[in-house]
């Protein structure tokens, strides 16, 4: 068991800053949701006549663009903790 192989000081108390395969799948899904919503809200805003409705839809479009950037940043590999000992085995 891991308990015997690793001394206590190397035990991780939470997952390291490394993207799992599942994280990657969720991120790509979420990015496409955000892109679609940002485009849709912008399109709907252009179709509306009421200024208040138009403005609300444009704000929502911008919000989803912000969310898109937050998520995209997580796919940027320089953000990840590649030096974490738990990750060593996965390097090429």
């Amino acid at each position, binding site marked *: 068991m891991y308990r015997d192989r690793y001394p206590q000081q190397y035990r991780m*108390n*939470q*997952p*390291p*800053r*490394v*993207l*799992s395969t*599942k*994280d990657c799948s*969720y991120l790509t*899904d*979420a990015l496409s*949701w955000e892109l679609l*919503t940002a485009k*849709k*809200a912008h399109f*709907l*805003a252009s*179709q*509306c*006549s*009421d200024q*208040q*409705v138009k*403005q*609300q*839809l444009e*704000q*929502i479009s911008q*919000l989803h663009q912000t*969310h898109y950037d*937050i*998520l995209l940043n*997580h796919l940027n590999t320089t953000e990840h903790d590649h030096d974490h000992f738990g990750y060593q085995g996965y390097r090429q």
Partner: protein
Amino acid sequence: MNSHTRSYGGYQQHFSGSTNPTIKNPTTQVPQSTQFNDRDCLNDILAMEKWLTDGFNVFAREASHQALHNDVMHILNETHRAARDVFNLMFEKGWYSLHPEQPEQVAKEHQKFQSYESQMPQQRTSPYESGGMYQPRQY
């Protein structure tokens, strides 16, 4: 959106056929045709925001490391706020109406669940005492 600064046209209105007042603003008229109107636009984006909160809720729960979880929680929160803003705007436009529950019914349910509280494992002396507050683990 700044709706608190605007005065509502009649907070409670009586409608024929109902003994209860309906909470509703005067309806902002939209064209009743096959054309996609302003109300349809807001309904469409509200449905989308609701759907997004479901997706991000699962994502937040399944995220591996803390930084990712935190960012997804932040997005989840803001998506809820966006849905809320759309809902409030639709309410302001008079496209949503609410029906208040009878106060007697609310009092009945309150009494019922107050008596059930004796089944709680942690007995409290006052209703709002925060004795059993969950303490998150420190890292």
